[in-house]
Structure formats: C-alpha cells, structure tokens
C-alpha cells in the first residue's frame, strides 16, 4: 500500500478515535454541570410532583455510563433526542442551524482565504518595506479589535450612515441565494476582518521562514524575479503551515462566532447553544457540543492530510 494512503488512513482513524473520546468527555462533562436539570427546565412553576415526573422521564436515575451508551447509540443512528425545553427534534433543529452556520462560514472563507494568501505573499515579497508595513499595520488593528466592536461599527456605518445592508441577518429556508447573501453581508464583513489578519500574518511568516532556506538563494542566483522565487520555490514548501492556519481559522468561523450571531441575531448554532445551555437543556448542549467538536476534528484531519500529501518525501518515497 502506498505510504501516503497508509498515513492518511491512520490519521483519519486517529481522528475518529479522538472524536469518540470527545463525545464521552462532552456527555459526562455536561452531565456533571452543577444545577438541577429538572428544576432548571420547569423553572418557577415547578411542583415537586412535576419535578419527579420529569426526572423519571429523563431517566436521570440511571447510571451515567448507561445513559452515555444509549446516547451514543442514538447519535450513531442520527437520533439526537428531543429538546427538553420545547420537545422539538434536535437533529432537525441542528440540521437547519448548522446549515446557516456553514453558510456564514463559507461565505466568509470564500472572501478571506484567497485575500489572506495574496496579502501574505505581497507582504512577504516586500518584507520590511512600506507595503508590508501597511498591510501588517492594518491587519494588526483588525486583529486587535474585539468582534462586537467591529460588528457595531459596521452596523452604524452600513445600516445608518450608508443604509446598504440590514442590521438583522436572519436567514430562512426558501430565501433566494441573493437575498441570503445580502442578509449575511454584515457578519461576513466582520468575520473577514477577524480571520483575515491571522491567516495573512501566518502566511507571511511561513513564507519568510522558507525564504531562509539555501535553495531560495539558489533560486535568486538563477536570476529569478522575487515574485517568481516566492511563487515557484517558497510557496510550495510553505503550504503545510499555511493550510494548518487556514484550517484553524475555518474552524473558528464555524465554532467561534457566537458573539457575531448574537449581535446580528443570526439564527445559527452558536445562539442555539447559548439559549439551551442556560436552560440546562442537556441533550441539546451535548448534541451541539458534539457537532462542533466533529467539525473541528474533521477540519484538523483535513489539514494533516493536506500537509501529508504536500510533502514530497512522503509523496515520492525513496
């Protein structure tokens, strides 16, 4: 078997193992959260009778491990259970909101990733000169700005001063793509601001790091133009680190955007989680947590696989 294939398979298997472990941690961890679930659900109007009924119905009296495996079985068969607070089927609820989350993430990624790479290359090309300083300065500012600040700033600018976009970015099934894109414009702008800087800086760093190698000098002594040197000789060898940071940011776009969702009342997974955490709606918290972890691990696997494939030593063994 080709060594790459072997490595990739190993990596994927490892990821699945990790995911399994994570699922256990999430389940038991959430179970261990302080606070009486039943009480939290029924809230003020909870009579002892109702509480007891609920505990029974939730099987809170069974041992944790049993409940974990029951849950896991459900997950594997695509059944995430029902929300305790309003009895809706979690899988379907998550399905739609995950769709929205991904939609936002992808829209932001499509803009930010290429932009980041280009800026990174340019900055590396003119390292230490004014274009580099300019780019670095701008990105440094955006990286240092809390999301919510950026968010309110664009709201003020683009819905009040220049009313071109809508401040509330809810998207619904049946909206046309155009309408959706128009709706999420503001959160996308904010997210791009946030992730662009990081990716661009890492791209620049990775390239400059490779620029230290002797074969770059060889390329220079071949009389290649600086851009040729970077593009032909530096970039191919900087792919692995760049990919890993890109993936890191993609993951962030999926799991880290609660604030943006809140500010723009964007109906995605983050807010869904926040709402249910405080209600101790355990099944939901566990399900969402698992989904997030899965996305995260999945992306990391992709990153590893890419860097494996990008490595000529592995691609063309001796």
């Amino acid at each position: 078997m080709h060594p790459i294939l072997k490595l990739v398979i190993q990596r994927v298997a490892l990821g699945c193992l990790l995911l399994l472990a994570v699922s256990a941690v999430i389940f038991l961890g959430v179970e261990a959260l302080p606070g009486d679930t039943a009480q939290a659900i029924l809230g003020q109007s909870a009579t002892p009778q109702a509480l007891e009924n609920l505990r029974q119905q939730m099987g809170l009296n069974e041992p944790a491990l049993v409940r974990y495996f029951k849950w896991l079985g459900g997950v594997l068969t695509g059944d995430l259970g029902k929300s305790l607070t309003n009895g809706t089927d979690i899988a379907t609820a998550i399905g739609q909101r995950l769709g929205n989350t991904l939609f936002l993430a992808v829209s932001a990624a499509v803009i930010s990733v290429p932009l980041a790479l280009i800026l990174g290359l340019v900055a590396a090309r003119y390292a230490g000169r004014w274009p580099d300083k300019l780019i670095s300065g701008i990105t440094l500012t955006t990286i240092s700005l809390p999301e919510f600040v950026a968010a309110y700033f664009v709201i003020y600018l683009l819905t009040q001063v220049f009313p071109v976009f809508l401040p509330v970015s809810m998207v619904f099934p049946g909206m046309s793509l155009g309408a959706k894109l128009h709706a999420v414009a503001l959160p996308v702008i904010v997210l791009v601001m946030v992730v662009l800087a990081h990716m661009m800086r890492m791209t620049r760093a990775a390239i400059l790091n490779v620029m230290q190698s002797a074969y770059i000098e060889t390329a220079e002594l071949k009389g290649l133009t600086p851009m040729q040197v970077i593009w032909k000789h530096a970039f191919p060898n900087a792919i692995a680190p760049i990919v890993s940071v890109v993936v890191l940011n993609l993951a962030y776009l999926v799991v880290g955007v609660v604030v943006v969702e809140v500010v723009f009342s964007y109906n995605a997974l983050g807010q869904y989680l926040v709402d249910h955490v405080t209600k101790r709606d355990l099944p939901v918290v566990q399900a969402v947590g698992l989904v997030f972890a899965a996305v995260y691990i999945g992306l990391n696997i992709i990153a590893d696989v890419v860097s494996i494939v990008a490595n000529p030593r592995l691609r063309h063994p001796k």
Partner: protein
Amino acid sequence: MKLTLSAGIGILLTAMFVLSAIFAPLIAPYPLDLTVGGVWDAPSAKNWLGTDTIGRDILSRLIYGGQITIFVALASSVIAFSLGSFFGFLAAVRGGWTDQILSRIVDLMMAIPSPIVALVLLSVLPLNLPVLILVIGVLDSTRVFRLARAVSMDIAVMDYVEAAKLRGEGQIWVIFREILPNALSPLVAEFGLRFIFAVLFISTLSFLGLGVQPPLADWGGMVKENKDGLIYGKSAALMPAAAIAALAISVNLVADWVLSRTTSLKGGRGA
C-alpha cells in the same frame, strides 16, 4: 537587535496602560460609580471623554476598567503559562508515555472549541474573578503547552542537553537550567499574544454578560453598557473599545519585536 520604532511605541503604550492601571485611584478624576453628568454627555473640559449611560465619567471608568481588564488578563495568562510551559517541557524531556498522555489530553481539550467550553462553564459556575481567571487560564494553557513542547523538543536534541544527561543531571536541572533559558524568548513573545487573547476574550465574555461583574467595570462591559448609543453616533462605547484595541496593538508590537529578535537569534543564513 536594536529597538525598532514600532517596538518603542508598543513598550511606551503598554507601560502607560499598566501604570495608569496601577495608580488608578490617584489619576482617575472621579470615583468609579459617581454620577457626574447627564446621559452620554459629549467630551468636555469637565469629562474629557464624556459621560456614560447614567452620566458617570468615562475616563475614570476607563482607568479603573483598565485595572480589572489588565489584572484578569495578566493573571489568566500567567496561569496558562505556568501550566502550559511546565507540562510542555516535561513532555519534551520525558518523552515516551508522559509525552503521549499529556499530548493526548491536550488534543482532547483542544478538540472541544474553547469559546464553547468557556460559555458552558461560565454560564453554570458562580461568576467571580477567580473562576473567570481560572477558566480562561486553563483553556488557554493548551496552546502554550503545544508551543513549549515544540520549542523544547528542538532544544532537547541539542548536544549540550545530551551532555547534561551524560553528566547525570536530574530532570529538574535539565528543564530549568538547560532548556528554559533557551526557550524563553519565543515563550515571552507567545506570552504577549496570549495576554492579548485574554484581553479580547474577557471583553467578549463581559460583553455576553458572562465576564466581569458590576460594580467592577471592565472595558468589554463598558462597551456593552454604552453600545446602544453607537448607532446614534454617541462616542461613549468607542472609548473602551479603542482602549482594548490600543492595548492589544501595543502588546502585539512588543511581542512581534521579541519574536523577530528570537528568529534573528536563531540565525538562518547571512553574515
């Protein structure tokens, strides 16, 4: 390596923030919670940065807020660091099972997105500074662990470490005398970045209502208090926001500088 202009600015600003935080009671023109003006007065000679939602002096609150923000951020990044780097070094030096176990645990922790964990934890745990600091610190220590491990892995293969082992030195000596001094500068730079991360993270948490609690004020909370005025061009919320950004930027500049120094120490080619 000479001190660059940007680094100079960074150090200057950082120092300014820290000092004003330390001597807050001395410099703040008004007490934290005193109402001295109307709602959202514009900046004036009396209130340099204007007043907030219930007419408290923003400058004063900024200064006191800095105290909290910087303290919490500092404390949590210190925790993140002591934890992360110690275990990172241990993993690198011990290798074998120790490394395996520690690394897998960290993988596990990192596989569950930290904002989510923070959200879940903080919305159920009692909200006070120690808890806040601890949560941020522990969550953040994983990244430090990775870095510390990577850096010390490079150092651990150096001949002088092998020499120390051959001499019969104990692990503590190897970690603290042979590895730590050489891993310091990249770690210092990382510390800067972690600190910024903590500042932003705290602000965000406070913004979500899960962070610093009144009557204490931190910058994130202040933005939250005053944000409603933003869309009417009331500058109140921009002040703490700017403060956060300024602090982050200045520390960033310093960190970048340290980082560039360390890479230039590592050498690469050239005269």
